[in-house]
């Protein structure tokens, strides 16, 4: 499907890029969206496609696939793979094994890669001079500067509705749940689909960690409340299958 670019308000541009099995939506200053691939937006988009080609476990020729099959050593992979695996190991330790880069026994660091790639795409735009942009990777959002961004949290129990709105300036919002792709997050300790929560949203400064934490927290279920509470800089809001909600102590600062 072709990528689409639509103008919104003066001086702003929106762009939706199909990549990494989802759609990454950009809200950027219009000047970053110069035609062709050489402007700041074009470079950010190119970065996402490079990440997809390098890290996708669904592409047999990606570095992740080849390294996972033992065909090439880490040293022959893109250096970013070592960086990502190191970060995955760190989150895995920090989450007591609820986050893993080898779900089902196969190398698949996607639970970290998407948030990391989107956070870095946003950083590329900042480095290019954009002072106000957001990048939404299939429902996980990194916001940078400019305005006070208002991010709606999808209600997992009522399709098409928002559960609440969070707001902030330089911050990230990641949500894990089963509403879009079914019960795809496995509790690595039981091998069964996690079912304790309908969805959990993690907010904090960076999307790489917010996304990975959200994945681990979803697998963890209600125990994630104390776990996220113990992490510096990140807060969580959860909705249970029965419709009850809870939030960590500092989450209120993000409520709109």
């Amino acid at each position, binding site marked *: 499907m072709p990528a689409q670019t639509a103008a919104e308000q003066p001086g702003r541009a929106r762009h939706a890029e199909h990549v990494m099995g989802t759609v990454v939506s950009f809200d950027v200053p219009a000047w970053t969206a110069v035609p062709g691939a050489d402007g700041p937006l074009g470079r950010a988009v190119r970065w996402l496609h490079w990440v997809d080609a390098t890290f996708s476990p669904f592409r047999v020729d990606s570095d992740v696939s080849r390294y996972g099959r033992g065909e090439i050593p880490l040293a022959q992979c893109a250096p970013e793979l070592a960086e990502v695996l190191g970060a995955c190991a760190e989150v895995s330790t920090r989450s007591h094994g609820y986050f893993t880069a080898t779900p089902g026994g196969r190398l698949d660091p996607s639970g970290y890669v998407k948030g990391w790639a989107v956070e870095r795409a946003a950083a590329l735009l900042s480095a290019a001079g954009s002072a106000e942009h957001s990048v939404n990777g299939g429902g996980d959002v990194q916001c940078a500067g400019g305005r006070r961004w208002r991010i709606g*949290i999808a209600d997992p129990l009522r399709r098409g509705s928002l559960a609440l709105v969070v707001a902030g300036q330089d911050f990230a919002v990641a949500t894990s749940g089963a509403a879009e792709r079914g019960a795809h997050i496995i509790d690595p300790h039981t091998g069964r689909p996690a079912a304790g929560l309908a969805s959990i949203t993690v907010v904090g400064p960076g999307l790489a960690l917010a996304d990975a934490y959200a994945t681990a927290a979803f697998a963890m279920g209600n125990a994630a409340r104390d776990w996220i509470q113990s992490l510096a800089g990140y807060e969580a809001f959860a909705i249970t299958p029965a419709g009850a909600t809870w939030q960590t102590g500092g989450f209120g600062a993000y409520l709109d």
Partner: protein
Amino acid sequence: MRRVILAVTGTIAGLVALLSFKSHVPAVPAAASTGTGSTGAGSSASPSAGASAATVPGEFPQGSLAGKLSAGETAVNGHVTDTAYGPVQIQLIMKDRKIVKVAVLQQPANTIHDIQIGEFAFPKLISETLTTQNGKIDAVSGATYTSAGYIGSLQNALDHGA
């Protein structure tokens, strides 16, 4: 003060999004004027404090409701929009500046893909619009959607000018 504006724009998301939010534009369906068929929603728009979303049943009638309007209701037809899946056109029924019903005038109906769009994504797209008439948001966070799921997402609507 919130006012509801209606602007049926040129994309599938634009079908929806429109409904608006904290707009400064006082009123009415300027952008809907090239829609085919009915109506005259055009006039006298006044501020509608807090324009809350009316409750709309979960199914969307096929075909125009223009002949079946109750008192105070106005039908506004959107542009026919060419999507990757075929032409789409919706009709919004307004009352007191709120959307009270949505009908589908045209939607793709050929392939499996089209059916999915018609039966799942499209209604979802509409219902999302109806439930977000309050307050402008910049993006939506939720369980990761697939490429296909994006079609019916509110984020899609936002990306196309909501």
